[in-house]
């Protein structure tokens, strides 16, 4: 399955992925790849399959057919090429894929600090969590993240007491501490002020210098600010791909968005 030609610097590779629910094809022969340290935006109307695509990558949904490979570039050393369809959510997360949901979901009964500590990379087994304390290095990382998301003065407040925007930031902070190679982000700008939106775009661009970031978004201003390659999803497959300008001029895309 790996003898297809895959470019060297590919991080995520989807080939001919199909998922159907009771006959409805949520993903229809979807194929695309994400390179190392690439920032990629995905747009598409409702029901285009964006969430299902994320579910497939993160191990929540098993595809009916198709390959989902992580780190496929090292096809010579099969070891590090990973078939994501064989792993569940927790394993996928530990392989280095982080996911941020559309609805901010922080742990409401834990404080900001505890939320971040929970996300800090490593120490995932129950026994480690009982016996292995927080290293000072870890504590420093949490402090750094806290600074980056500007929630220092809220560190001992519970998740429940944060505003919508603060929750979004906290979640981004948690992703930073997870330190993934690939970040999947679902509508990060939803519910943010304009100023916050641009700050988020900046942050994502900055993040993509060390890792690959895939952003699903509706807000065109935000996508423009991301300034990256855009992919349009429609009825479970890729409709168009390219720069934002290129995509916006594509007749098919205009048809889909404006209705036939």
């Amino acid at each position, binding site marked *: 399955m790996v003898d297809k030609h895959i470019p060297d610097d590919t991080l995520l590779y989807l080939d001919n992925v199909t998922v159907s629910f*009771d006959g409805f094809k*949520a993903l229809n022969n979807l194929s695309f790849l994400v390179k190392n340290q690439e920032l990629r935006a995905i747009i598409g109307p409702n029901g285009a399959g964006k969430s*299902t695509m994320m579910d497939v990558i993160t191990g929540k949904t098993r595809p009916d057919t198709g390959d989902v490979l992580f780190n496929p570039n090292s096809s010579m050393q099969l070891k590090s090429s990973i078939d994501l369809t064989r792993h569940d959510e927790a394993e996928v997360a530990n392989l280095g894929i982080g996911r941020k949901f559309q609805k901010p979901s922080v742990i409401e009964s834990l404080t900001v600090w505890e939320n971040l500590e929970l996300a800090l990379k490593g120490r995932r087994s129950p026994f480690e969590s009982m016996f292995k304390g927080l290293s000072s290095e870890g504590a420093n990382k949490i402090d750094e993240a806290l600074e980056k998301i500007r929630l220092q003065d809220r560190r001992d407040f519970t998740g429940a007491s944060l505003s919508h925007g603060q929750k979004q930031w906290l979640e981004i902070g948690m992703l930073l501490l997870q330190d993934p190679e690939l970040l999947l982000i679902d509508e990060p700008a939803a519910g943010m002020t304009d100023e916050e939106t641009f700050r988020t775009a900046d942050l994502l661009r900055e993040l993509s210098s060390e890792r690959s970031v895939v952003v699903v978004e509706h807000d065109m201003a935000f996508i423009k600010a991301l300034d990256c390659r855009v992919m349009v999803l429609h009825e479970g497959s890729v409709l168009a791909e390219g720069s934002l300008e290129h995509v916006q001029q594509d007749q098919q895309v205009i048809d889909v968005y404006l209705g036939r």
Partner: protein
Amino acid sequence: MNWRLWQALPLVCLCLLFVFSAPGQVLASSDASSNEELATMLGEKSWDKLETAITRLSVKGDDESQNILTLWLSGQLFIEKKTQRLVTAEKSGRTYLISDPISGDAWGEVKKRSLKKVRINNRLRNSIKTALALWDLKSEDPDKRLQAVKEISKDINVSTLPLLEGMVEQETDTDVQAALTTAIALYNFQQGSDELKLESLKTLAESDNPIVRSALESAKNTTKDKQLLQGIHSALADLDRRQDYYSAVESMFFGLSLGSVLLLAAIGLAITFGVMGVINMAHGEMMMLGAYTTFVIQSAFPSLIEQSLFIAVPMAFIVAGSVGILIERLVIRHLYGRPLETLLATFGISLILQQAVRTIFSPLNQAVSTPEWMSGSWIINDALSLTWNRVYIIGFSLAVFLTLLFILRHTRFGLNMRAVTQNRAMASSMGIHTSRVDALTFGLGSGIAGVAGVALSQLTNVGPNLGQNYIIDSFMVVVFGGVGNLWGTLVAAMGLGVVNKLLEPWAGAVVAKILVLVFIILFIQKRPKGLFALKGRAVED
């Protein structure tokens, strides 16, 4: 039950009096056989001679002889030692009241030791039964004739054979005819030539009468002839095959009837749990209310036992339904979206209802009577009979199921209910009173539980714990069938019922039940959403 028997007692006595005295009076005038003659005949000590006496009476064939034989069989015939006359005796305190068996005239009171009982043993009993059956052969009632033929076929001899053969051609009732053919074949098999034996095996192989089996079994061990032996074996194999078939049909029937009970118990739950997502632990108590409604109606109108169930079904629906609506309005309404809390609150309600019933009625089980038309069995053939109450329960549960399906699919209320389930906000904005629909839906589920309770009152003890015994089973059925799917509930209930009954013969009732529970527990691990789970994004959290 008992009081009815007591009421009927005088009537029974009257009948007996009539039966035993009437022929006697008629015969006293005719001088068919004198008491003296009979007394010598029956005073014999030798079993063989007594046997002859039976034959003689039987050949005579008059009503008087029938009466004598009946009395003999029931051990009421004595010889008075002093007078050497034949008497019937009835105990009265320390002494016996004796009378003439022929005329029925009372002959006074004697002590026990002055009487000698006419001897009887098992062989004679059988002979008398056969002889008595001959009278019944002429009866107008085909059931009586059938019984008589069966009685006679236990022991056929040269004298009875022609009688049977003569009857075959005139007999109009097919069942009686089949029994006659079997009886003749059985005689031929036991007494006839080898050819006749082989011939008769064909007929015997089609009979379900247990006597045929025992005759074949005993012949199997004594027969030397190879061909005949082979015939016997193949006939027995036929019998076995049919027996297996009947016992499979019977297990299936028991399974389906258990399944129907489960369906009745679970279907209301399928509404409250499946459609509304409400865990109603008081569901069992709704059934209990239905069963008690039946009890109350029967106690209030003792003359209407036969019709009581037809009154009880709508009443139980109303009682349980109203209690359900009350519970929904007072408690559950505040707990939507918190299934675990609902579970606890309704459990509390179930405790209160149970204790209320204990306080109002009693902690003991109540006697609910079964109408005449529901008791007894439906006899299909010698090997297979189905009890009527179970047959009715199967039909009733299916009727309830179809009614519910109809309400959900084809009524305005059903439409509203489905709308509220699928999208509460949208339904509300379209002018549906969601809270009223909630209450009515819960009322419907509870009402159906009440109706189920009426059915259960015919099958099990009606007591405060009636509901508790069914609640876990009902949940298992709903979960196993797949929540929110009525057809799933049907399949699960019937499936579990049948599996349970199929396991019972080799595992025992309790172990079978445990096995089914364990199976479901494991099954839920494999398919957490049940047999017929809805798929797709809509059901994912």
